[in-house]
């Protein structure tokens, strides 16, 4: 790492040329997807094996290994992309590395066994750009992850990083930048979708007592959403650059990144990125030779969902309980330590350098009338191609589920997709042709939220889903408002009773009444939206609630108290495989003879169901 600071635009260009020249000396560059989920599947061992083999073959001057952040296609990790061709190998093991070096790297031969197979066409695909999962995406924000080792600022500089900042500082007045962001139509990616440019303007125009703050909200708490983690892990400098530009436009000299402690790799990478940016003079005093000073502090969240709410987040940085407070005054008027504070989500910040570089017009051409640009969704749950997908706003839900996501695994039928986390709702299959943007999702009874999309199939019980979110919310409610603290708990009790077969007539109506009260009487976003999971499942899946209450049946076969496991006499082959996993010793039988299940011992853990390869365990 060079110690010299970047003084101006010429300095930056010179440094970039140096880095590019060095990179160009590598004929081949291998990008290993090494985010948290890649690492959980052994990607670090792959990186290590490559380094060792490259050294052994003495080709370190020609081949560069780059451990990148998440490349999006989590389903097939650990995977690599070999540049310049873009060859894509998936589900690798360390033992594959020798062959990749000897065949593909040294002899230009494709290894068939490591290629991705498109299940629809049953065809092997060689290049990343030809994989259906990627084709329909528009990865303007997340696409750079594959070129960047997040621990090395030089990689970010090589692809034009901090160009937008130097442009902003040397060519544009703060007001001009705000105007560009306003014209782009960028809206907050954290959930509510407030216009970013407007927020910046409000903060800039707030009475200035000498201090203003910008905050990056990296407290991604929505279960099932991890696009923010992947951005902060994989391309932390894009977030920092956005923050520095924003701070300059707003007139702030201090910034905070409030990041979840449950994301250790993201914390590590953003901390390192801040240090490196300081060394290059991109943070600190007189940034890039200008008279603008700005620095960033990393503040770690301690595991409280409500701290994603901006006033609670501020309380937490100030060292207090993370309880939300009444707004107005909004943080742009009175925020951290009582000073004007602008809070944006990670993905919002990461969009800023792109808009400054390519212009407001370019950005506003992507998306729909009211929702501009792209949005990253985490496509998870019962879906074939699990991963992070970045798509233009307005894309049809069906395209995401079936063309990018590859549909539902195992001959099951699509039932619903849950968006917006605990504040959102479930969208049923009747609405598969819904265009996805801020307004359409609200109309459908859900919200955009931070971008989680949890796909559910016929084996998911919607009453159980409602119970799951209510349990989450009653646990995470900070307790300040009675309506939220008691309301979420009471709603959970009712739904829990329903799932246990103790539901009675009138429960649904009572739920609806309670839901309305919680919505109306709660102070912050958590409470105001806490009813959404209940209301949206009631709206589209009322008959499932009724089946639980009237027939004491769980149609999806999920709710324990309403189901029974039994052995299908015709299918049981007497293989004894289910006997050992049963923690209760409830299954008896001998080899090649029909097994039996003692209902009085069964605790319905599902171990036998998971083990049986002949579908002989049935749920009734």
């Amino acid at each position: 790492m060079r110690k010299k600071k970047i003084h101006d635009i010429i300095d930056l260009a010179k440094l970039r040329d140096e880095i590019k020249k060095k990179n160009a000396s590598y004929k081949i560059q291998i990008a290993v997807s090494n985010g948290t989920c890649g690492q959980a599947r052994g990607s670090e061992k792959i990186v290590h094996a490559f380094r060792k083999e490259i050294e052994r073959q003495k080709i370190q001057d020609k081949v560069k290994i780059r451990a990148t952040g998440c490349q999006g296609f989590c389903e097939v990790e650990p995977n690599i992309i070999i540049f310049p061709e873009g060859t894509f190998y998936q589900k690798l093991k360390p033992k594959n590395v020798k062959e990749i070096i000897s065949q593909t790297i040294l002899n230009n031969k494709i290894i068939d066994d490591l290629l991705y197979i498109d299940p629809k066409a049953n065809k092997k695909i060689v290049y990343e750009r030809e994989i259906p999962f990627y084709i329909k995406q528009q990865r303007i924000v997340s696409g750079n992850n594959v070129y960047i080792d997040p621990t090395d600022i030089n990689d970010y500089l090589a692809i034009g990083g901090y160009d937008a900042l130097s442009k902003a500082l040397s060519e544009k007045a703060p007001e001009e930048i705000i105007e560009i962001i306003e014209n782009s139509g960028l809206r907050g990616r954290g959930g509510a979708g407030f216009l970013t440019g407007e927020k910046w303007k409000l903060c800039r125009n707030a009475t200035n007592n000498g201090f203003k703050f910008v905050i990056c909200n990296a407290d991604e708490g929505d279960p099932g959403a991890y696009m923010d983690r992947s951005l902060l892990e994989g391309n932390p400098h894009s977030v920092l650059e956005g923050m520095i530009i924003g701070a300059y436009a707003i007139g702030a000299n201090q910034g905070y990144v409030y990041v979840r402690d449950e994301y250790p790799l993201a914390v590590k990478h953003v901390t390192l990125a801040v240090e490196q940016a300081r060394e290059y003079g991109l943070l600190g005093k007189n940034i890039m030779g200008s008279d603008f000073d700005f620095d960033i502090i990393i503040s770690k969240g301690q595991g409280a969902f409500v701290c994603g709410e901006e006033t609670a987040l501020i309380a937490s940085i100030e060292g207090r309980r993370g309880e939300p407070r009444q707004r107005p005054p909004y943080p742009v008027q009175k925020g951290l330590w009582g000073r004007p504070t602008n809070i944006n989500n990670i993905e919002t910040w990461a969009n800023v350098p792109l808009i400054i570089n390519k212009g407001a017009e370019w950005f506003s051409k992507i998306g729909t009338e009211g929702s501009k640009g792209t949005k990253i969704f985490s496509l998870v749950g019962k879906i074939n191609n699990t991963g992070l997908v970045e798509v233009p706003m307005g894309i049809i839900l069906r395209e995401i589920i079936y063309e990018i996501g590859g549909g539902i695994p195992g001959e099951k039928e699509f039932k619903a997709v849950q968006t917006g986390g605990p504040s959102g709702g479930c969208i049923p299959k009747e609405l598969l042709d819904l265009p996805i943007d801020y307004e359409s999702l609200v109309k459908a009874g859900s919200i955009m939220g931070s971008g989680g999309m949890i796909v559910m199939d016929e084996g998911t019980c919607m009453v159980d889903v409602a119970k799951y979110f209510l349990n989450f919310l009653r646990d995470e409610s900070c307790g300040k408002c009675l309506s939220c603290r008691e309301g979420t708990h009471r709603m959970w009790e009712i739904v829990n009773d329903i799932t246990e077969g103790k539901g009675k007539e009138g429960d649904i109506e009572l739920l609806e009444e309670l839901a309305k009260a919680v919505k109306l009487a709660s102070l912050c976003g958590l409470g105001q939206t806490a009813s959404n999971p209940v209301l949206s499942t009631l709206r589209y899946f009322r008959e499932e609630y009724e089946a639980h209450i009237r027939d004491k049946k769980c149609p999806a076969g999920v709710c324990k108290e309403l189901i029974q496991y039994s052995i299908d006499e015709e299918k049981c082959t007497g293989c004894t495989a289910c006997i050992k996993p049963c923690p209760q010793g409830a299954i008896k039988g001998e080899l090649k003879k029909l097994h039996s299940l003692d209902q009085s011992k069964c605790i319905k853990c599902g171990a036998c169901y998971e083990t049986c390869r002949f579908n002989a365990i049935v749920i009734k």
Partner: protein
Amino acid sequence: MKSYNFKVESLIEKHSNQRKALIPILRDIQEEYNYLPQEALILVSESLHIPLIDIVDVATFYRAFSLEPRGKHTVTVCLGTACHVRGGIKVLEEFERKLNITAGHTTEDKKFTLETVNCFGCCAIGPVVVVDRDYYAQTNIRKVDSILKNYRKKKIEQ
């Protein structure tokens, strides 16, 4: 006891005795002792001039802090939505049976603390279980025993 005082005081000093650094100070203490000992909280209260009740208020609000001693290993089962629809709760129940404790508690021999988390953000590979810093992908109830074995064995080797 003197060295104990010294340790906690040095952790407080590291943050220049600032009121606003309460959460980072509690974090450091938790990291050092694996929980927040009462004596340490009293020391923090005296040094920062914050009433003890306010410190307990903060310490009990955030999930990361514990007022009880924790086990040598922490088993955390993810119950995010994606893990939930793939059967994360069944995995948790199996851990509860195998360890003979419920979530949020520590085994009598202080070897394991069982926790849940609302999402690790590794939704593609759920249900996810993290023990200390090791990630286990696509778990199911059949894998629970072998996961625990890794840590039980470690104990004997040491």
